[in-house]
């Protein structure tokens, strides 16, 4: 940039030419990365969301293992920690993809963040990509932290068929994230921010208690037949199949894919940006 003569200094003290127009959008990749970093930072900075993302799953895991230890029980011949850990990982995926995404997006609409970004060079698909990246980053971080906690309390994931375990885990996390995120966006895009906050937390609690996430759907008796068709039950089952049985649970993955299709179709039809 050229340096203008000092005597043309304008009101306010900086030399003229400072604001000379030079518009242009940054590259899509750069914008998406910036958006993803921003959203991930904000998610992790928020105390309530950290509670959902890490603290509650850790309490469920450690508390569940301790309780089962006192009762001296095993489930279906597996150590409690081996059965609980996949469920707790599923719970973590659900809390971030559904509850956190719904609440964050609901308040982005309320505070005009989406509106302001709508006048910025970041296109809508860039915003969505940024959200997805941020979400996957936070989920990955949660899984690492929770896996470390689980290993310290004695978790031994199945080593029978590592390729199946890894593939089943990645598919379960990927499809579970997309199913719950599309449902979270559906809620956030249709309701007011306060209603979204209430509903997203309520659904989380209901699914935590009775959604087949943490405990196998088989432990719910007759209701289990229904629960395995819920996204929560399907995610829990798919995670347990991968980590307990080294298996890819095709039916549960299909259920998650179907919820993704339903959720994103409805979201695309009903989402209001403002």
């Amino acid at each position: 940039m050229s340096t203008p003569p000092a005597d043309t200094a304008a009101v306010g003290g900086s030399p003229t030419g400072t604001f000379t127009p030079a518009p242009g959008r940054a590259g899509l990749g750069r914008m998406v990365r910036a958006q993803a970093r921003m959203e991930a930072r904000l998610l992790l900075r928020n105390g309530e969301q950290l509670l959902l993302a890490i603290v509650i799953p850790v309490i469920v895991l450690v508390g569940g293992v301790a309780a089962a230890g006192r009762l001296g029980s095993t489930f279906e011949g597996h150590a409690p920690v081996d059965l609980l850990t996949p469920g707790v990982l599923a719970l973590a995926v659900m809390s971030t993809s559904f509850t956190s995404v719904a609440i964050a997006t609901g308040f982005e609409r309320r505070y005009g963040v989406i509106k302001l970004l709508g006048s910025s060079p970041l296109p809508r698909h860039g915003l969505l990509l940024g959200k997805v990246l941020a979400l996957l980053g936070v989920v990955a971080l949660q899984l690492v932290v929770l896996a470390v906690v689980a290993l310290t309390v004695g978790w031994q994931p199945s080593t029978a068929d590592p390729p199946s375990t890894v593939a089943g885990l990645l598919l379960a996390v990927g499809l579970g994230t997309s199913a719950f995120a599309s449902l979270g966006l559906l809620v956030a895009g249709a309701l007011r921010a306060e209603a979204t906050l209430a509903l997203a937390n309520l659904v989380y609690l209901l699914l935590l208690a009775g959604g087949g996430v943490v405990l196998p759907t088989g432990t719910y008796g007759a209701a289990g037949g229904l629960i395995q068709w819920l996204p929560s039950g399907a995610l829990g089952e798919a995670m347990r199949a991968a980590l307990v049985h080294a298996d890819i649970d095709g039916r549960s993955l299909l259920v998650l894919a179907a919820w993704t299709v339903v959720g994103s179709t409805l979201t695309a039809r009903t989402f209001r940006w403002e």
Partner: protein
Amino acid sequence: MPPASPAVEIDGLVMTYGDKVAVDGLSLEVARASITAVLGPNGAGKTTTLETCEGYRVPQRGTVRVLGLDPQRDRGRLLPRIGVMLQSGGAWSGVRAVEMLEHMASLHAHPLEVAMLVDRLGLAECGRTPYRRLSGGQKQRLGLAIALVGRPELVFVDEPTAGMDPQARRTTWAMLEEVRADGVTVVLTTHHMEEAEHLADCIHIIDRGTLIASGTPAELTRGGRSATIRLVVNRPFPDGAPESLRAELGPGTEVRQLDEVSMLIHGPADATTLGRVSRWCEEHAVLPQTLTLGQRTLEDVFLELTGRELAP
């Protein structure tokens, strides 16, 4: 696109919300590298008009061109070239002020230096403060910085100094003048007369969704054969006071009652008029507490055109 084309061209814009007409056949132009103020009371249709230019709203009738582009059809090409300051909000509640500005800068190809904007707009003191804890004035300054950071050709600023203290307001005005000097077009809405008079090259006065006057501040306030007398009295005027005062003052005067104790009188700026006002007060047993004679201001222009005061 010829550089001489106006920065903004609005022709016959109509916008309604349900059965409420927000903008009613508005036509106006904004010259490049100028500061244009869109002045009007709350609910006049200022924000709706701006949001149509920014591509947020689809014109129901009429056309809008911004930098020669259609804000709907050419949205992707237009957005990087304009800067927008919303009337309120626009940031995450937990985001820190400077972090937000850096984020917006990262969406542009050649952004301004964030540190320079932070320094110039006095945001350093609240740089690490979460948005929800910023004062109204700090939020406004951050909003202005966000509008400017992408080095746009045109900025739309909606009520830029609402909630600012006088010093911040002067800083903002100085910056907008500098921005104009560097060739940026500024369109601002305000209901702050002083702001429009101080800053604007051109003022469009809107009321109830239509343009009622346009011109430079000098053009709009010229033509005062008359002056404005403001009369405030110690107790409510009797019924029919404006009519009786007008009769006392004779032809060539206009009297408008603003509230139960104040009136605005447009008439010849001379001692005779003032004397007659005093005499009328005496006859009607009210005591003038304020009796001032002033030059025609934008306030008067607005009052003459609409019969209402431009309430803050």
